[in-house]
């Protein structure tokens, strides 16, 4: 675990290469452990982050990821924002369908990661690119 991570402030990681996707996974895991998610929930949120960060890289042409802790009464959670200034997602409903891909993948990244987290929001347009915010809460 990285020493000295200040969990009070969001941690940023740029996504420019597939090595950066690895770094996003590690960062999300560190924060998920810190807010005491269960092992299964850690695994789910790290997997979702891996899918979304890869999309940021591949379809968004790169971008950035921000990881923060959030609190809601007694529950803590991890919130992750994936942002790129790529072309946006033309048909969101279609893109959120299992098996839909424009890139020869399995088409599970978006639809699957939505199932793996508690909250999932997408803002996307050709002008502003794509911004996806996900949250996973401790139980």
């Amino acid at each position, binding site marked *: 675990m990285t020493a000295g991570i200040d969990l009070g402030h969001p941690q940023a990681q740029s996504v420019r290469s597939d090595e950066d996707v690895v770094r996003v996974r590690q960062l999300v895991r560190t924060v998920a452990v810190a807010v005491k998610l269960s092992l299964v929930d850690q695994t789910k949120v790290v*997997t979702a982050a891996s899918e979304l960060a890869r999309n940021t890289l591949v379809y968004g042409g790169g971008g950035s990821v921000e990881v923060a802790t959030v609190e809601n009464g007694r529950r803590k959670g991890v919130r992750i924002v994936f942002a790129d200034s790529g072309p946006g997602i033309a048909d969101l409903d279609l893109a959120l369908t299992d098996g839909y891909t424009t890139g020869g993948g399995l088409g599970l990244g978006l639809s*699957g990661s939505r199932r793996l987290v508690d909250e999932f929001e997408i803002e996307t347009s050709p002008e502003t690119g794509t911004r996806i915010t996900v949250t996973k809460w401790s139980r």
Partner: protein
Amino acid sequence: MERVPILKIGDILLVSIQVDMSDQTAVQLQEDLAERIVDTGCHGVIIDITALDIVDSFVGRMLSTIASISKVLDAETVVVGMRPAVAITLVELGLSLNGIRTALNVERGMELIAAAHADELDYQLDDDPDAETATP
């Protein structure tokens, strides 16, 4: 880029993934394995993922592809050591590890491969057209 080592143990190639692989490392492993199967004539590949704390769609697809490639090259692939949390997450993600054989650990994986190979030898010896064939 990191490279995942491939060990040859008897008639089996053993890959124990110990690092959080970048996509490039995963693709490289796929290529290295295909080459080693041909070079060594091994009939079995065991991929030990005990150390992996996640399997996402990219790595899942890589495992499926390795299984398909090895089949074409007359080798059986068995994935061993999947953690329960990883299995749960894979199902929720919607990833079906198509065509992948799994076993609890390396030992069981070796038994599976030995059994599969023995069946195949029997079949070749008998030359029995009604014998069980692998259906895709």
